[in-house]
């Protein structure tokens, strides 16, 4: 149901930009998303981290919204679900902090440190990076979609 609607909206020539932009965007969106998740997951080993990776995720969704149309962005990830993901990221950060309260103090690094320079190491730092990344990405996408659609929805309903 949802997939058919997305396919129909993508192939509609009246929506979004030209065919060249759509074809390039279809390839690059996946690469940008991959790079964003790489920056988030390797945040404790290489430069980057939750904030930078989250903004890259938001940029990938923004590119989808500009190249195709804002209607397909609403079908893919609506403003309601974007704010839900924002809340989930914020809640995960605070829950990890409160779990640490049982071992010592608030935001205590309770997981094992692991071997340095390997992917699974540094205790709770990758988890906190992931929650911040999800939170920032969903929040900036929600701001962009809110600025873009909210005034126009009222006008379309009145017409």
């Amino acid at each position, binding site marked *: 149901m949802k997939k058919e609607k997305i396919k129909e909206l993508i192939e509609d020539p009246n929506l979004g930009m030209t065919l060249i932009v759509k074809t390039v965007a279809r390839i690059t969106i996946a690469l940008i998303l991959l790079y964003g998740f790489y*920056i988030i997951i390797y*945040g*404790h*080993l*290489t*430069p*980057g*981290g939750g*904030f*930078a990776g989250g*903004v*890259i995720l*938001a*940029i990938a969704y*923004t590119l989808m919204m*500009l190249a195709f149309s804002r209607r397909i962005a609403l079908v893919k990830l609506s403003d309601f679900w974007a*704010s839900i993901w*924002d809340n989930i990221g*914020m809640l995960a*950060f*605070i829950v990890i*902090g409160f779990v640490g309260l049982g071992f010592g103090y*608030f*935001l205590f*690094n309770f997981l094992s*440190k*692991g071997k*340095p*320079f390997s992917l699974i*190491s*540094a*205790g*709770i*730092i990758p988890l*906190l*990076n992931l929650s*911040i990344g999800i*939170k*920032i990405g969903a*929040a*900036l996408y*929600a*701001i*962009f979609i*809110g*600025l*873009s659609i*909210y*005034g126009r*929805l*009222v006008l379309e309903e009145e017409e």
Partner: protein
Amino acid sequence: MLEIILIFIIVGTVIAIETRNMLSSVIAVGAVGFGVSLMFLFLQAPDIAITQVIVEILSLIILIRTTTYADNEAIEKRLDTFANMTGLIFLGLFLAFCYWAFSDLTSFGQPLMNVSQYYLSAGLTDTGAANIVAAVILDYRAYDTLGEAIVIFTSILGAFVLLRTKGKKKTEEKDIEKVGIPE
């Protein structure tokens, strides 16, 4: 190298203020942002450089989207000679005192403070994170990061409350009278 980037940033800022077309002003602001990120890269802070580039791109997209639909010409410029002269005099005084005060400072990055010495020597064994920036912002200073996340969360909440369409009351005549805003 750093001086060239600084001069580039100053020239970009002056162009952004002085140009009449809004779109070229926005593009000049973007050039200033990329210059700032290059400067962070030369000061050996790649984390900040990545974040600066990406946030600059997103804000540039939003600014260009708004200025392409808006009225593109800047408003008429008014010159106030007295205010300009006073501002220039105080700026000159400020720069003179800066030259006098900053000549006593130590050179950049020297000497290391006690706390940063401890972070650099014991950060890997304490936290297990190879990236010392991640170790500081998410382990030693995790409270600070929690505060930043809450600030962003609250600002997003405020923006959604201002922008929302559902549940917003239509303005009636008595509201306009009560607040006192002309139409």
